[in-house]
């Protein structure tokens, strides 16, 4: 692993433990002679320019990142930013043009068909935007499909399928056909199908974009609950910033196939890398995302230091009441060390700067 990290030119974000997925310098270019583009001067052209000159479209450009075990890693971007292509490159549903994809240190691009199939059957599972259910099969048979194709017997796969059907709350619908279910229920089937094979990594490709807002929120809560219960590594694609902030431990923002910024939600909101990200997060209620760490100030001689203590990782919104009730500066302490203080002026400054309107 060390050689890889050393060789990597840009590693966005820092993964704490050994990464499950490691992507280095990944390229995906569609079009004639795509493999010749990478490494040539053309590679540095803008997307539109490249298309005009060579007829090729660069969907993913020079992308590098790591996903840590049990992490929820969100890739966010507008439509056409290449995020769906990226997630397909990970299991080679779309063949990458150049670069490296490592799964637990093993080179995915170097795998033969058999090994790749094993990877898809046991390690990864994917949930799709349009569900991709089999209309001619009952819910039970849809959920057990992944087990069926890897050769599990009927009693075994039905037992396992029943487990996950219960887990995602589809009890009683086992014998229904997909078109008899609502969109939200159908996506539960898609989710159950992915969970049934007990994968190490769950890939979500805009799974809730086709759902109504209310149902979407319910499904997001469902994903958070499942993450607590089964603790899988999740890679989540979305174009919805509030969804990204709600679910993501870390978020990678893509534009035109390139990485714009990668970091925790409060890093994106507190320190946008450029105008593009700033524009994106403008409408976010900062107090809901930023932690005290972002507003802590140095201790001055006037400060009375007999107030309560708080951790720097507390979200501002959750600290409002305590700080204002205290009537004096609140100490921010991390591992016994005093980082500084937070007072009501600081907190009100954040809230006052927020856009008026309903919070996300």
């Amino acid at each position, binding site marked *: 692993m060390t050689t890889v990290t050393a060789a990597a030119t840009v590693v966005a974000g820092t993964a704490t433990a050994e990464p499950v997925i490691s992507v280095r310098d990944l390229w995906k270019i569609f079009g004639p002679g795509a493999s010749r583009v990478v490494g040539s001067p053309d590679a540095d052209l803008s997307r539109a320019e490249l298309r005009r000159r060579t007829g090729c479209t660069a969907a993913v450009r020079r992308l590098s990142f790591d996903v840590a075990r049990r992490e929820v890693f969100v890739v966010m971007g507008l439509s056409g930013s290449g995020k769906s292509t990226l997630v397909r490159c990970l299991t080679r549903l779309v063949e990458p043009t150049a670069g490296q994809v490592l799964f637990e240190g093993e080179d995915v691009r170097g795998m033969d068909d058999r090994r790749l199939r094993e990877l*898809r059957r046991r390690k990864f599972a*994917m949930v799709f935007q349009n569900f991709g259910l089999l209309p001619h099969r009952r819910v039970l048979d849809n959920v057990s499909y992944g087990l069926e194709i890897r050769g599990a017997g009927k009693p075994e796969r039905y037992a396992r399928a029943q487990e996950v059907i219960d887990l995602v709350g589809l009890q009683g619908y086992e014998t229904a056909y997909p078109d008899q279910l609502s969109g939200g229920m159908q996506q539960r089937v*898609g989710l159950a199908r992915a969970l049934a094979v007990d994968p190490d990594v769950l890939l979500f490709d805009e799974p809730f974009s086709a759902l109504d807002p209310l149902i979407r929120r319910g499904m997001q809560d469902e994903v958070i609950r499942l993450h607590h219960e089964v603790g899988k590594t999740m890679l989540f694609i979305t174009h919805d910033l509030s969804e990204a902030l709600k679910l993501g431990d870390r978020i990678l923002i893509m534009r035109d196939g390139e990485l714009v910024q990668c970091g925790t939600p409060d890093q994106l909101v507190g320190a946008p890398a450029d105008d593009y990200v700033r524009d994106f997060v403008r409408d976010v209620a900062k107090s809901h995302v930023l932690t005290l760490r972002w507003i802590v100030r140095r201790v001055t001689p006037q400060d009375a230091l007999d107030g309560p203590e708080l951790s720097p990782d507390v979200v501002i919104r959750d600290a409002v009441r305590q700080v204002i009730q205290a009537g004096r500066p609140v100490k921010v302490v991390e591992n016994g060390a005093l980082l500084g203080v937070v007072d009501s002026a600081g907190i009100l400054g954040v809230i006052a700067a927020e856009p008026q309107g309903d919070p996300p």
Partner: protein
Amino acid sequence: MTVLVAAPGLRRPSRGVLVGAVLAAWLLLFVALRGQFTLSAGGPTVVPTWLQHLKDGADGQRNTSPLFLYGFNEIRVAIDPLFTNVQGFFLRLGWLGCTVLAAALGLVFAGWRMMLLALAGFLAFGVLGLFGESMDTLALTLTSVLIALVIGIPLGIVAGNSDRFQQVLTPVLDLMQILPTFAYLPLITLCFLIGPASAVIATVIYAAPPVIRLTSAGIRNVAPATTEASRSLGATRWQTVRHVQLPMAKRTIVLGINQTMMAALSMATITALIDAPGLGKTVLKALSREDVGAAFDAGLCIVILAVVLDRVTTAASQRAADIGRSGRATSVTARPAIALLALVAVVVAAQLPRLTARVSLLFPDGWVHPIRPAVNTASRWIELHLFSTTEAIKNGVTYRLINPLQTLLGDSPWWLLVLVVAALGYVLSGVRIALAAAGCLVGLPLLGLWPSGMITLASTLVGAVSAMVIGVVVGVWTGRNDLADRILRPFLDAGQTMPAFVYLIPGLALFGATRFTGIVAGVIYASPVVIKVVNEGIRDVSPSTIEAAVASGSTPWQVITKVQLPMARPHLLLAFNQGVIYVLAAVIVAGLVGGGGLGLDVINGFSQVSLAGTGLAAGIGIVLLGIMLDRITQGAGRRRAGSDVALGAH
């Protein structure tokens, strides 16, 4: 040929004007050059003579050349018993066994209504006195369908998954489908002799394209998300095909099987020309004796067989889809019981003749009541009382339309005609189509078939234009009137599934054995397709456009001529293309009843050994004519669509 070098920079005149200019130039040059360079003697006979040698050579080597010993003969020997076994199976079942089997299959797969239909249909075969012939045709059809499916479905699966293979396959299938059924019979008999094996092979060639096409289309229509989901779970290619693509494409594939079956029936009757047994042979014999009544009986059997096969397979596919969806427990448990009962009935019906002398394997003579005498009486009555009317119609069209057109085609210098075709092809579709079409036409004099080709061409053009007139009138009517559409549609659906053969019979009854009969048959044969395509074009026009036109005060006539017809233009062109191909097919078959032309050459090639070379050449000539007509008319539609896209981009 000034049109070819239209001055650049000037705005190109509309295509209608250009076509008019080409035709006017042709007429002028015809007047000036009439009767010169006409090839009325048929032109060089090198190719037919060479083909005759080829045929003689093939006959000589049939038992010595390895190509025949280990190639064609092997195939023939493999297919013959396949057919004979199916035929023998029906024979052993006897009439009662066959009828009960058909009813049982109808009941189990398509419900009790279809059981009654099958029962009535099979009894009708017996009553008309043609039970054995009907079973022979059915055996030929089923054998061919079986082979077509065994070859066609795998090909369709591959084509559905591989763009490259699809690209290679599509033009081949196009060709297989536009070729009039007659065209490859001579070539097939060259390789496989006459008889059931050749009949099966010809039928397979004609009938396989629909199932290949629709299997591929069905697989291509499966949502990409679904196949991708399957891949993402690590399914192998075959697992994805078996568990995802085939089940989801099932309905489309069954539709393909249905179309293949109807095409097979249509071809199976025509293979009577190469000595295949069945109803076609009865029709053929009757036609040659001008025995309208006998032809009518056999034609009616073909119609009944077509209706039974079509309705039962359609209902079966519908029902299979319904059951698959509902997953109701009753249908699952009740069906084995019904199936068992049906099986017992079939076995009993098949064994009865062996148990009691009162039931015979053959349909009881006492029950046979053909309608032949009645039809012949009616036919004679028509001849006596309507003669003046039918004769007037026939002569009017023949003298006013067919003969002048044939004179124009036949008496023009042959190279002028080639130039006209090239110019039309260029104006309508561009350089490549022009060259292809002109190349096809040049082939006719090389084959020594110029006069026959011109007879066929004249009849086809007259028929296609007539079918188009009928098609536009009826198509616009049904396109604007839901009730008319609902009433007419079943008839059009049924009409489309009938073999071209059948339509000769009423034509013969009314007009006797002439070219005109062939054209009438062609018009009847082509009309359902033309009407349907025009109807679809009219219905495709968006309601809001029509509403806008009506709101601005258009009369219905204005809506039709200024909105619906112009917007349906791609469909009109497609309709004409289909009309030409269908009429050509029927006009060729009409060689049987005095239509003359290339069809007659083919038939003479079968009946007289010394004319086999000409027969082979005529087969090729039909192919060339078919491709020429198809390219010119189809190119027109395509070019139009292309220019619209280009305009939109500006």
